[in-house]
């Protein structure tokens, strides 16, 4: 498993635990923090846990390139983790503290930029296994 995937998967596991803790707190005190806390719980679980884990595993397991760096340019993919997590933290804080919508939009823009980087890195690897290896 490459380093970028290890970072994404480990961070996803941390979000799973944090999101479950927040969910448990909301069951214990349903009025805590208002609607924004429920949204933050969803943010941690859907973007922090599920999306991040899926991206980490896909980056690891999709077919590799036959020539050049096996998983494409690492400098490009190295931006996925910091951008995605900056976006998740910004969005979650925006929900928790009920900050102005512009803060949430900034978080979403960071998440989107991470997904664009991931799509650019993953797109050429969506192919049958072994293609190009005969070259």
């Amino acid at each position: 498993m490459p380093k970028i995937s290890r970072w994404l998967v480990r961070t996803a596991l941390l979000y799973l635990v944090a999101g479950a803790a927040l969910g448990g707190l909301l069951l214990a005190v349903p009025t805590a923090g208002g609607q924004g806390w429920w949204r933050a719980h969803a943010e941690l679980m859907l973007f922090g846990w599920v999306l991040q884990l899926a991206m980490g595993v896909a980056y690891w397991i999709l077919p590799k390139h036959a020539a050049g760096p096996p998983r494409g340019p690492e400098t490009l993919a190295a931006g996925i983790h910091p951008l995605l997590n900056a976006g998740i933290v910004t969005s979650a804080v925006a929900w928790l503290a009920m900050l102005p919508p512009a803060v949430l939009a900034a978080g979403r823009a960071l998440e989107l930029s991470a997904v664009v980087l991931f799509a650019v890195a993953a797109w050429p690897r969506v192919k049958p296994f072994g293609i190009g290896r005969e070259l």
Partner: protein
Amino acid sequence: MPRLTRWFLRSGLVCLLLGLGLGVALPAAFSSSPWAAALWPIQLHLLTVGWLTQLIFGVAWWLFPRAPSGPVRGSEGVGWSAFWCLQAGLILRVWLEPLRIAGTLSVAGAPLLVASGLLHFVAAAAFAVAIWPRVRER
């Protein structure tokens, strides 16, 4: 495919069927009733925790790199703890959360609903502990 993976995947499929079944039943039977709102979070958690998270747990347990030492897939006991805590949490939640939202949850039921959240937290933490050493280069 290891036994724990098979249990996660089969339980996940049951939750998927239940979640989608609720998706059929909600608009058909409860569209103008308070139960529609009460059952919506249940459908959501059956699909996200019951199906998606169990699918991830099961496949990760099966396919992630081997543990650096000890049993090939790490501690089976911790993995099974995650499985049973997740099931117990889901059952309590599916049973009690609609009652809370509908305002009919008894005094005795309230701590059990909190316990369902605690069980899911323990399941998440146990799985993270079990799989963490396997998040590594082959």
